[in-house]
């Protein structure tokens, strides 16, 4: 059994850990509110963008000559995966959930005999993936310096993806991120951005638009913008998810530390009592023997 002194030290150390996790929780809660706000504010843009693209791709005259960003290169040989994670740890299952989702996708791709290329955004994802898929990672980007997710960072990633696409380095691009549902639930998402799949194609928009210049030209300008927008959306969702995940993780940690302090205190009191009793017995039996 640990000595009284040891127990005392352990209680003190758990208490100070609890203080830290409590502080981190509060910081995460404050940041979460801001991140959530900007995620909500960013939604109209990506929704509008989607709408316009939907209208455009419905209106396009010859589907065969549609821009490659929309219709794909025709084959699906090389897959590019953009895995978006955070730069900081201590946020519960946030990063490992994305990695898990991504890894199962990677396995599927490799089993089908296709080529795999990975871009990691955020250093945590890179750390976890480089052990197994180190040779597949072609680029690692991290935005440690920027405090909040901003469009210019997303644009940088988007431009890089498009550059690689135009150079014919890959055929299909998928991004991995956590969608923010609420503080406790974040859903890891895999979203294909090249070629754009319009599964929810609506035929309701019968209204015809005037295009200036023609559809093809607008589309070829719009699609690269859409890539950046989708990545930006993913970044916003991710940052809200990160803070939410960190908040609940730190909340749990604080609670666990509290329980641990209680347990240790009981143990401390009990062994203190045991020592007193032992001393008493020694005194009494000493007195009796006289």
């Amino acid at each position: 059994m640990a000595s009284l002194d040891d127990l005392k030290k352990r209680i003190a150390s758990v208490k100070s850990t609890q203080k830290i996790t409590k502080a981190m929780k509060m910081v995460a809660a404050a940041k979460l509110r801001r991140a959530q706000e900007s995620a909500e504010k960013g939604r109209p843009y990506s929704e509008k963008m989607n709408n316009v693209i939907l209208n455009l791709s419905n209106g396009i005259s010859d589907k065969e000559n549609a821009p490659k960003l929309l219709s794909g290169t025709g084959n699906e040989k090389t897959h590019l995966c953009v895995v978006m994670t955070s730069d900081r740890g201590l946020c519960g299952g946030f990063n490992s959930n994305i990695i898990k989702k991504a890894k199962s996708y990677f396995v599927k791709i490799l089993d089908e005999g296709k080529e795999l290329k990975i871009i990691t955004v955020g250093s945590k994802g890179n750390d976890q993936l480089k052990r197994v898929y180190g040779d597949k990672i072609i680029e690692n980007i991290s935005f440690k310096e920027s405090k909040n997710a901003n469009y210019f960072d997303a644009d940088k990633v988007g431009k890089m993806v498009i550059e690689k696409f135009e150079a014919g380095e890959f055929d299909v691009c998928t991004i991995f991120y956590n969608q923010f549902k609420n503080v406790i639930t974040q859903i890891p998402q895999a979203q294909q951005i090249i070629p754009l799949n319009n599964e929810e194609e609506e035929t309701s928009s019968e209204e015809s638009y005037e295009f200036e210049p023609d559809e093809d030209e607008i589309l070829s300008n719009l699609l690269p913008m859409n890539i950046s927008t989708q990545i930006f959306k993913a970044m916003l969702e991710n940052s809200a998810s990160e803070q939410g995940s960190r908040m609940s993780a730190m909340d749990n940690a604080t609670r666990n530390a509290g329980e641990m302090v209680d347990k240790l205190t009981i143990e401390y009191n009990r062994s203190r009592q045991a020592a007193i009793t032992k001393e008493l017995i020694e005194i009494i039996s000493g007195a009796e023997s006289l």
Partner: protein
Amino acid sequence: MSEEFKVEIVNPEKSFLVKDDVSEVVVPAFEGEMGILKDHISIISFLKPGIIKILSKSGDENYYVEDGIVEFKNNNLSILTSTIFNLANMDKSKQQDLLKVAEEEANKTDINDQSKFLADQKVEVLKTLN
């Protein structure tokens, strides 16, 4: 019958401006400036660097944009842009900064014709603001 329609400008971070008493909007469309009045035909077009003029009862407003898309439908004008500044709030130093970036871009030799054209446009527009 009122001659007003609704305009909404969104940038990636937020909904930048919503106004529903607009009588005319002039946008720098790719193939030339385009004035939009109420009951304009549905149109989609994209923007080159330039000035958006919004005319309404409550006063005229001017915005500088670098890129974007306009969509007009059912008397709703949506403008999506990644870079927008209200000219009323834009001071000289900000303007100079933008001009400097644009000039640098325009002087690059390894860019294609279209980006060259866009960069030149930026420089031109920013210079006229002075």
